[in-house]
């Protein structure tokens, strides 16, 4: 695939992610911070989000597995996950965290388990999509092209 075609695919794929609510405007904010002095910023901060999320999802699974569920602790973990997903623009993950916190408040274990499933699902979806996006970007750059996200998003 030649560079122009790849660039078009990249932009269309990104547009779809916004349209389908996977990403929100905060993701565009990240791109505003990426420049020659910080060329890998988006990948770096998203990678931190992946690490944070995986750790938190594991902690949530353990916490819900306990005989006496500590809803305060669970809420604290979900709050963290809501924070990081919000900071990078992972809208659907953030929204699933909001529902999760409602179940915590209601001290509803069943509800929490369902919410955890939902959060896991949304996380895996956005992870796959962003990784695909980053791979495509790499190929474009390797082929001598470039992505001017900021110009396009604005």
């Amino acid at each position, binding site marked *: 695939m030649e560079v122009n075609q790849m660039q078009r695919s990249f932009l269309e794929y990104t547009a779809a992610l916004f349209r389908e609510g996977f990403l929100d405007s905060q993701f565009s904010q990240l791109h505003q911070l990426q420049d020659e002095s910080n060329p890998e910023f988006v990948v770096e*901060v998203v990678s931190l989000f992946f690490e944070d999320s995986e750790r938190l999802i594991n902690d949530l699974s353990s916490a819900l597995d306990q005989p006496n569920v500590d809803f305060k602790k669970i809420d604290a973990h979900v709050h963290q996950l809501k924070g990081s997903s919000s900071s990078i623009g992972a809208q659907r993950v953030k929204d699933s965290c909001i529902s999760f916190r409602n179940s915590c408040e209601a001290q509803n274990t069943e509800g929490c388990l369902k919410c955890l499933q939902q959060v896991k699902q949304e996380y895996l979806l956005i992870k796959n999509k962003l990784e695909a996006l980053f791979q495509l970007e790499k190929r474009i750059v390797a082929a001598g092209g470039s992505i001017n996200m900021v110009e396009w998003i604005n």
Partner: protein
Amino acid sequence: MEVDGSSTKGLLNHIEKPHVLAVDDNLTDLKLVETLLKNSSCKVTTAENGLMALEYLGLGNDKQGSLNDNGSKVNLIITDYCMPGMTGYELLKKIKESSVMKNVPVVIMSSENTPTRINKCLEEGAHMFIPKPLKYSDVKKLRCQLMQWGN
């Protein structure tokens, strides 16, 4: 020391890079705030919790650490509100209680922006309350203020 011989002593000519201490227990958020600040020409030191922030500033419980002068070089502290152990609000109080640090502006960031929380922080002397997620425009505004305070 003046590099150019210009007689125009504009506000910008004498501003050093503001040194900001950024405190947040969420590593993704910490990376974001750090980059936003560096992008706005600030020197940034990060801390993952209130205790580490106090130790850096020389306000920690460790008496030997209290002999450092990091605190006097910090121009702004920006901290998350919700942190385990010591909240941003508690950190704000400790800073305002310190004779060395009490005049350093403290900005609180939070994803929960209830009027109660905001007022509580402002009453305790917080300079500003910024809702999360942090955006480029938030930091730009802050940076403009720092330029004015610099002198």
